[in-house]
């Protein structure tokens, strides 16, 4: 029976426990008014901002190379905080100028002109147009290993980047509607020209300086006093890393951290909701929890097998088991917040007997051994036994192999030596990763590639939306992966913390507006 996805709005209403973060400010104001009437002696002293905020995460970077090492942990701490691009994306999803004072796109969509602002790197050197040209030109060398393949693909339509005084021009061979967004992400980061050490240190232009890294424990960012724009609200921001969700939860409950940036075990949310001094924030993400299949390896090179895998999994039950029911079933690789979203849960719906029959028809004999590689993160470990059990019922013999992130990046992501794995793809507008046949899905479909190319070159937004919608449907019909659920953004904060981004719209965790007002 097809499982109807709950609408995102109703899900939000059901689970949103947002206690207004303005609550404390309101209480202060009331106290002041009462105080002025002589009813209260204290309570209206000017609000004091704490000089330090500690944020809790579960996923520590392996190094600082934002352009050369995959994974979300590096941009989470460095993008928009330490490093900046010409443009940036804000909480509502819109793109605004950053290191570019202004920008202009030609009518044919082939020339982007950025006027640079006066800015300074953390080591005191000024930002120049040469830095921008050097940084972005790194993305044009298709033989380089210094940047990730996904970035090479993102900037493949760029012909040249040139500078004239403080104006930088990007010339494209064909229209690319994703260019501005891609410039807001890790590919668009501007380094000081001739930087060589990307992994060990981070010299950016952002509102925070990379100050200290206690490996295995925390990264400390200090406010950059010479920042070109509005300075960071809190002097010191500490990213603390915890080995697992339980340790993170305990730290939040014990008051060791001010913000728990991710709720990795939603079953425990009720504990936080019951506390008056804590606030639960619920927002959206672009994080599709994906059951990736190796499309280049038998039996997953057969669309019938891939579809059967999807049909074998009862997503509703899986979301209950793995994420306490807080995820949204999407049936495809597009979050409901994108204009081209379409409910695709009716493609390959849960049907165990159909899956079993399809596997027999595809020649998969009962007990065919396959391996499910599981990285050490709750959404993956919580799902793995359910998935192995469900696939076992339709004819596979699944071996679950726990892998470290290092092994995941090396063996699975880089060397593509895997059958199945579970990982959250968090990038926004990331449909293009399935258009890259060398990506670790090894999904090679010319029709899909053409649709993605056409969407990127579409002159009108409506045309782009329609094309991407068609591409999303085709992708779901081809079942290169299964999309298990869309991850909600659940955060817990101390009540006096303000300035958090509720939604997760890109790879960064922007800390500039976070403060504790007591």
């Amino acid at each position, binding site marked *: 029976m097809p499982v109807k996805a709950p609408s995102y709005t109703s899900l939000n209403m059901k689970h949103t426990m947002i206690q207004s973060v303005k609550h404390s400010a309101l209480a202060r104001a009331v106290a002041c008014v009462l105080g002025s009437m002589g009813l209260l002696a204290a309570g209206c002293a000017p609000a004091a901002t704490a000089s330090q905020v500690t944020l809790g995460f579960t996923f520590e970077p392996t190094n600082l190379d934002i352009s050369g090492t995959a994974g979300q942990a590096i941009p989470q701490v460095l993008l928009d905080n330490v490093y900046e691009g010409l443009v940036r994306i804000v909480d509502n999803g819109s793109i605004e100028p950053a290191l570019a004072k202004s920008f202009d796109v030609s009518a044919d969509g082939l020339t982007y002109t950025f006027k640079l602002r006066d800015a300074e790197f953390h080591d005191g050197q000024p930002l120049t147009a040469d830095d921008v040209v050097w940084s972005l030109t790194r993305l044009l060398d298709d033989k380089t290993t210094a940047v990730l393949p996904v970035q090479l693909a993102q900037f493949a339509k760029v012909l040249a980047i040139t500078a004239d005084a403080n104006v930088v021009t990007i010339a494209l061979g064909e229209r690319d509607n994703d260019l501005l967004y891609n410039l807001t992400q890790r590919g668009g980061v501007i380094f000081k020209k001739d930087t060589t050490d990307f992994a060990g240190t981070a010299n950016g232009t952002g509102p925070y300086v990379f100050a200290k890294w206690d490996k295995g424990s925390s990264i400390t960012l200090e406010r950059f006093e010479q920042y070109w724009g509005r300075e960071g609200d809190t002097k010191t921001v500490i990213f603390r890393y915890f080995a*697992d969700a339980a340790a993170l939860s305990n730290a939040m*409950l014990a008051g060791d951290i001010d913000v728990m940036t991710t709720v990795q075990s939603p079953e425990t949310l009720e504990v936080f909701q019951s506390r008056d001094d804590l606030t639960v924030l619920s927002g959206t993400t672009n994080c599709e929890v994906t059951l990736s299949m190796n499309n280049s390896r038998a039996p997953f090179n057969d669309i019938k097998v891939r579809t059967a895998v999807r049909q074998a999994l*009862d997503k509703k*039950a899986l979301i209950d088991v793995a994420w306490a029911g807080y995820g949204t079933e999407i049936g495809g690789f597009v979050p409901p917040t994108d204009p081209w979203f379409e409910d695709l849960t009716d493609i390959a719906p849960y049907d165990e007997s159909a899956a079993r029959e399809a596997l027999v028809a595809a020649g998969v004999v009962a007990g065919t051994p396959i391996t499910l590689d599981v990285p050490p993160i709750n959404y993956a470990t919580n799902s793995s036994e359910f998935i192995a*059990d469900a696939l076992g019922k339709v004819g596979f013999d699944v071996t*679950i192999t726990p892998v470290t992130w290092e092994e995941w990046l090396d063996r699975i992501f880089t060397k593509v030596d895997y059958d199945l794995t579970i990982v959250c793809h968090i990038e926004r507008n990331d449909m293009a990763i399935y258009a890259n046949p060398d990506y670790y899905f090894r999904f090679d479909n010319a029709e899909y590639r053409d649709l993605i190319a056409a969407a990127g070159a579409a002159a009108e937004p409506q045309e782009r939306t329609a094309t991407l919608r068609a591409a999303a449907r085709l992708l779901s019909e081809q079942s290169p992966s299964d999309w298990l659920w869309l991850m909600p953004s659940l955060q817990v904060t101390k009540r006096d913390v303000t300035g958090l981004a509720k939604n997760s719209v890109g790879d960064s965790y922007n800390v500039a507006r976070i403060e504790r007002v007591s």
Partner: protein
Amino acid sequence: MKRSLSFATGAGMIGSLLVVAVGSVLWTPFPPLQIDTQARFQGPSFSHLLGTDQLGRDVLSNIIAGARTTLLAAFLATAIALVIGTFLGITAAASRRWLDDAITALATVFVAFPALLLALVIVAARGPSTATVVLTVGVAAGASVAVVTRREAADILHSPFVTAARYSGSSTWAIVHTHVLRNLFPSLTVQATGAASIAIVAESTLSYLGLGAAPPTPSWGRMLASTQQYVLVHPLLILWPALFISLAVVGITLLGDGVHERLDPTLVK
């Protein structure tokens, strides 16, 4: 011989666990891996005595099946430790100086290195596997057995009754078999229980860290790891495997003490 409370308690606890572990091959209240998403996080009840876990699996059945994994690992590691340790210890005691020194030096290096740490390093390098854990703990504990065995075997080999046996024409093998092994038995038994408790802790620790038994194999250490995220809301789930790990280690330690009390003549009043 005086009855020992430690022996009786330890033997009772380990005996019960062994019966349960062996019996689990034939019967558990529910199939340990049977998922029931409608029955998640149930508290203890008549149908599920210890409740159900995050996948609706019966916790008692998993504890019982997990005993098999843990106790089998402990048994095999202990067997390896005894075979290696006894062989090397007696060989060192009965050999020429240079071989004795070499074996003693090698064993001392292993003894200086904590068995758990060694297992962690090897498993991290070779990949998660219970077999690797068993082998590593067996070899590491074997080194301790070798050191103790060498010392005691040397004493025995220099005792008057062995000298007498030698002069009366007994072969080395006969002396080892008749005199050395028999007299080593009490200390070997104590050594064995020590090795077994190290193996239980190592297997549980490495499974907890995701470096031992691969899911979905029932294992106490893995049960701890997979349920600790729910500790704030369903604390019983983490209590059961922790309790059984403790019981197994306490039981085996009591058993070792009891054996020591019963067999060591110096302790008999």
